[in-house]
């Protein structure tokens, strides 16, 4: 039976049990920023080690561990959760929904990610982190001594399950929960890219799940998948990893593309140029993303026909991506461009990402890839697209949506200092790495010999990394000192999309009345063609809300306990962990919880205050 009212709760309990997409979004952001700092710290450690030739700051083994954890942390625990944070917070608002389709699963997804991430990092304290690089190629990973790689396998398995759940949740939310009038072709681009990203997650992550399962079976249960002596094949891992891994990079970049589309349109005060082409390009990128993974494996010996096919398929992705770049440029064309920090990041993205994208096409040239592969040229390429694309997107999104999410505006002056330092540091770090690669510096080396002409550029690169580090600290300061800017936070940028129609901070039910959408850029339309307010699609009525639940933490905790049991082959513990998980799932499935209703009177009071 549904309660009439929510029970009053303590703050901590409220956050632990929340199923509110906005709170979950904020938790993703906070955890993501934490892991970003951690991954960044690991990057700085690596750069210190590579500052001088034959330097001994980190041991070689330690270097490999730091390297592996840097890549893994940044991709799985920093970039994706930060994007998930925005997706969670913003997408329901943008489509005029009160919540996501599966609030309970949403919270489960978050806790799985967090427990998985923490599990992975526990390895630092138990005898060594994973050391076989983030790609964990077998047999290096399957034979790696110690438990580091076991932590990798199980940490990613747990957090990967969370991601998959999140993906399904977004898909259903976007399909089923749109406000009246919000057809698919009126959805903001960030929602669209969330949709396509979620499809990529849905079809890419299972391949990783199986890859990790096989690796676990080999390492812990004596399986022979990757054991050449028993007939195993080591290339299987590479395919499974990259069938996941290549779509993964588009999982990262597409949401960022979506954010840029919103931000550039807002600050150019123009409708996005070529909206339908943008949607179409996003879909094509998603589709092609599944056809090209073997471009990471040109040198593994698939043969010239396979290499040629995958090379050409990869190059094809430049076309839809180019369509997007030019559409953004044309959105700016004729606009009235305002240089806020959010927009500075969006604008810096265009040239930076183009530079990274075109080196991607160079890498896709299979015959030349034999020279590029596994050198710093590749490192340069992907940091250009990831930092110049994804990280810039995250920073742009932070400055753009922060007032909505946290109720205060970030300081523009400090923000600009942060922006310039980060931008310059970034190019300084990674531009020279293109040359390092071609001059004979392989990637994943714990050091390099003196007298090979690599000294100066490595030093430059490290200096750039330090600048990024300083910039990041300025960002953290900005986040703290800006808290006084609580004025003008409902719609500070003259926004175009529905999230700006809500008050900041957003009430838990988002919209007192579900809005009626009459055009693309629904709010802008009402501002400039209507009376500036969204029309309501329904009369004011009680609002049904889901109850919070502590069960997601127990489900995640159980899996974490089970993982420890597996890592140390103590199967009693494995069983106990699984019992906790399945027990919590069982409780969830037999206990019907129909949520509660917020009465009209309370909603009216909420409105009246504003």
């Amino acid at each position, binding site marked *: 039976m549904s309660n009439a009212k929510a029970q009053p709760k303590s703050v901590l309990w409220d956050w632990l049990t929340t199923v509110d997409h906005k709170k979950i979004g904020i938790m993703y952001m906070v955890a993501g920023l934490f892991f970003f700092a951690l991954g960044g710290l690991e990057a700085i450690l690596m750069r210190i080690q590579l500052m001088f030739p034959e330097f001994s700051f980190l041991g070689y083994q330690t270097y490999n561990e730091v390297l592996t954890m840097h890549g893994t942390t940044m991709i799985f625990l920093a970039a994706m959760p930060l994007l998930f944070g925005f997706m969670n917070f913003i997408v329901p608002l943008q489509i005029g929904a009160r919540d996501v389709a599966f609030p309970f699963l949403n919270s489960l997804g978050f806790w799985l990610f967090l427990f998985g991430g923490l599990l992975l990092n526990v390895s630092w304290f138990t005898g060594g982190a994973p050391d076989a*690089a983030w790609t964990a190629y077998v047999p290096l990973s399957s034979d790696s001594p110690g438990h580091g790689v076991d932590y990798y396998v199980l940490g990613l398995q747990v957090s990967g399950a969370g991601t998959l759940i999140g993906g399904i949740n977004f898909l259903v939310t976007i399909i089923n929960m749109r406000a009246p009038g919000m057809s698919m072709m009126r959805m903001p681009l960030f929602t669209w890219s969330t949709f396509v990203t979620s499809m990529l997650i849905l079809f890419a992550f299972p391949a990783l799940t199986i890859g990790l399962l096989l690796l676990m079976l080999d390492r812990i249960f004596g399986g022979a998948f990757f054991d050449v002596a028993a007939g195993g094949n080591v290339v299987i891992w590479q395919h499974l990893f990259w069938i996941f891994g290549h779509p993964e990079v588009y999982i990262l970049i597409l949401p960022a593309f979506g954010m840029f589309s919103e931000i550039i349109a807002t600050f150019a005060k123009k409708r996005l140029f070529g909206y339908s082409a943008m949607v179409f390009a996003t879909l094509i990128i998603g589709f092609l993303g599944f056809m090209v993974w073997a471009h990471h494996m040109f040198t593994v010996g698939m043969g010239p026909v396979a290499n040629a096919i995958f090379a050409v398929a990869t190059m094809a992705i430049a076309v839809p991506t180019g369509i997007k770049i030019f559409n953004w440029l044309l959105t700016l064309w004729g606009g009235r461009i305002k240089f806020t920090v959010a927009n500075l990041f969006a604008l810096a993205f265009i040239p930076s990402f183009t530079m990274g994208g075109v080196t991607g096409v160079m890498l896709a040239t299979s015959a030349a890839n034999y020279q590029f592969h596994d050198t710093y040229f590749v490192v340069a390429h992907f940091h250009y697209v990831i930092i110049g694309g994804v990280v810039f997107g995250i920073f742009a999104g932070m400055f753009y949506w922060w007032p909505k999410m946290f109720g205060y505006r970030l300081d523009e002056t400090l923000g600009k200092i942060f922006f310039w330092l980060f931008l310059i540091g970034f190019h300084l770090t990674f531009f020279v790495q293109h040359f390092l690669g071609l*001059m*004979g510096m392989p990637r994943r080396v714990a050091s390099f010999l003196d007298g090979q002409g690599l000294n100066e550029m490595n030093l430059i690169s490290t200096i750039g990394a330090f600048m990024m580090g300083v910039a990041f600290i300025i960002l953290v300061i900005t986040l703290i000192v800006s808290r006084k800017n609580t004025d003008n936070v409902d719609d500070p940028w003259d926004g175009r999309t529905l999230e700006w129609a809500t008050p900041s901070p957003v009430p838990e039910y988002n919209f007192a009345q579900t809005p009626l959408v009459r055009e693309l850029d629904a709010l802008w339309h009402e501002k*400039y063609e209507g009376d500036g307010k969204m029309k309501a699609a329904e009369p004011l009525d009680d609002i049904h809300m889901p109850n919070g639940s502590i069960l997601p933490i127990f489900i995640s905790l159980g899996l974490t306990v089970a993982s420890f049991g597996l890592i140390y082959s103590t199967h009693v513990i494995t069983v106990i962990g699984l019992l906790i998980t399945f027990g919590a799932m069982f409780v969830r499935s037999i206990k019907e919880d129909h949520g509660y209703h917020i009465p009209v009177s309370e909603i009216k009071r909420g409105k009246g205050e504003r």
Partner: protein
Amino acid sequence: MKHLWRLLPFSFILLLAGCGVENLSALDPQGPVADMQLSLIQLSLYIMILVIVVVFAVYLFVLIKFRERPGDTHIPKQVHGNRTLEFIWTTIPILLLLMLAVPNVMDTFTLAETSIPEADEDGVEPVPGEDYVTIRATAHQFWWEFEYPELEINAGQEMYIPTDTRIIVELEASDVIHSFWIPALVGKQDNVPGITNDLWFEAPEEGVFFGKCTEICGPSHWLMDFKVIAVDQSTFTTWADTMAAPPAEFTEPQGEVAVEGRQIFEANCIACHAIGDEGGAVGPNFTNYADREVVAGFLEHTDENLREWIRDPQSLKPGNEMPAFDESTLSEEELDSLIEYIDTLQILE
């Protein structure tokens, strides 16, 4: 155009002239395969620079022309899109990509032609060692083994090749995945356990070229270097003949100390390090050890370094397979005579 950096419009790159060591850089190719690859890189670079120039030009124009000026409050026209423009920026990239894709596909197939050359019109079969050389390069943690199946040679760490001859390398691995790369001569292919890959190249000039492992293979991955030594055909023949069947005066130690060294070698080393075809293959073959430029693939070849290596290989190259020989196994004097003996294992001056 030999130097890629000259092509770049970024002037500060010119400062880098002189950086990049000869015979290590893919930007300074020393043979037809690396040449072909650099040409392809250059072609792609030209195309990419064109793309970048166009994007940057539009970008800068837009930012300058349409920036918000103080007091400006107009609402720009809400344009929906433009079919013609969209058609143009779909078609031109496709054309640019085709310009790159076609030569790439051709080169990819050329590089995959690793078969032994065919007999000429007169039906004369090509001679291994003269018209071509097949080398089986097996990667180990963290060293390279080079077998010449037709010439019955097993060598470690240094790969001797004749100039101007087609070299076919078969790649294998004994433990984990490694990757074989000689930047100045040929792009890389992976050494994968359970799978045989191959590649070909030629070296027109004599010289010493640096080779590297480019697939992470453990803690000492960065130290897994090797050398490719290209010598003229007659030198190569001499080398190959001596390596295949070292003459007695070569293997028989000269002088008292060396005799003792030989015995120590037989007692401690030969189980892993063969001389000629006598001995094990856990570590690199020692037949021509004294010819090597470096110890353990990366240390300058001095007695001191060799001594340090034998005493404590793990601290120099963590994770490798060689056991340490401390004072209790090998006294200082024994080590002296061992090194003296090893110093005689020379095939070329």
